[in-house]
């Protein structure tokens, strides 16, 4: 089965567009929002480890 270049690119575009819209953009958005205030703010948001009582 040999697809024409146009058909091949069209299928590739649809598949990649679906993946980008469903997976890549949402993950890029959350990463952007996480690091938007800077890495320091991200680090400060992670609670420090409680010291062990043993």
């Amino acid at each position, binding site marked *: 089965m040999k697809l024409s270049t146009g058909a091949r690119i069209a*299928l590739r575009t649809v*598949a990649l567009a*679906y993946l980008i819209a*469903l997976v890549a953009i*949402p*993950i890029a*958005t959350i990463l952007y929002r996480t690091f938007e205030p800077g890495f320091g703010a991200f680090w400060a948001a992670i609670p420090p480890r409680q010291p062990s009582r043993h």
Partner: protein
Amino acid sequence: MTMTATRGAADSSAAPSGRDSTKPRRHRPLGVGSAGRVSGLTLGVVTLWLSVIVLLPLAALTAASFADGPAAFWAAITSPAALSALVTTVLISAVVAVLNVVTGTLIAWVLVRDDFPGKRIVDALIDLPFALPTIVASIVLLSLYGPNSPIGVHLNATRWGVLVALAFVTLPFVVRSVQPVLIEVDRDVEQAAASLGAGNWTIFRRVVLPTLAPAIISGGGLAFARAIGEYGSVVLIGGNIPRETQVASQYIQQQIEIDRPVNAAAVSVALLAISFTTLLLLRFFAGRSQDREERAA
């Protein structure tokens, strides 16, 4: 298939009859009995493990759902809120399964038959929904489609939001089922069909699709089964609005919180029955499709 191979190995290493010590000794794979069957011990261990992990909890759940009698069970699953949650769950999951069948097959096709820069990254991206905890998937989708959506699309607390969340978490099922089958497809048959004058669509429909059908059906079935039991990915974006966006798993949690364990167990058993029946039917159709393929080969 493993059993066949194991049995074959056992048979091929079998010594001729008699007690001659010079003859090669019979080596049996662990757990395979003299007749090439699984030994009682192996069978016992497997049955025990399966019972402890799967059957006992399911039996306990079923017993709990019928604790107040069959009438109470029926009343629990036919109450308007439960029925609405079940219908919403099954409908959205069915749409998600069909969406996965189409897009999953397409993505698998592009990953196997096409070549482009960054293909490996795209291939790795497919597994990301499996790697992410489902609650993270919900936060991820909420950040894009929630009240503060940067693109102005607000899907939170709508059925579309639930659909997108379920499509996100079930993405790999069909892709990862179809991909290895597509790699193994004999392309000579396609070339033969093309040399006989068949067009691309005919080749896909009559040659490629029948080969892929069992994998597509199995992947779609798994996506459906996962979607109807999904909780984490829909908990934030779904909104949990009764009779609108509340899915069965959220209804079950609600029933537990208001101390109605029998209702929760009844809806769980209903979900289990739907999922089991669907997988059984799809397995039957996939098996029939595979038999037809083997007969034609």
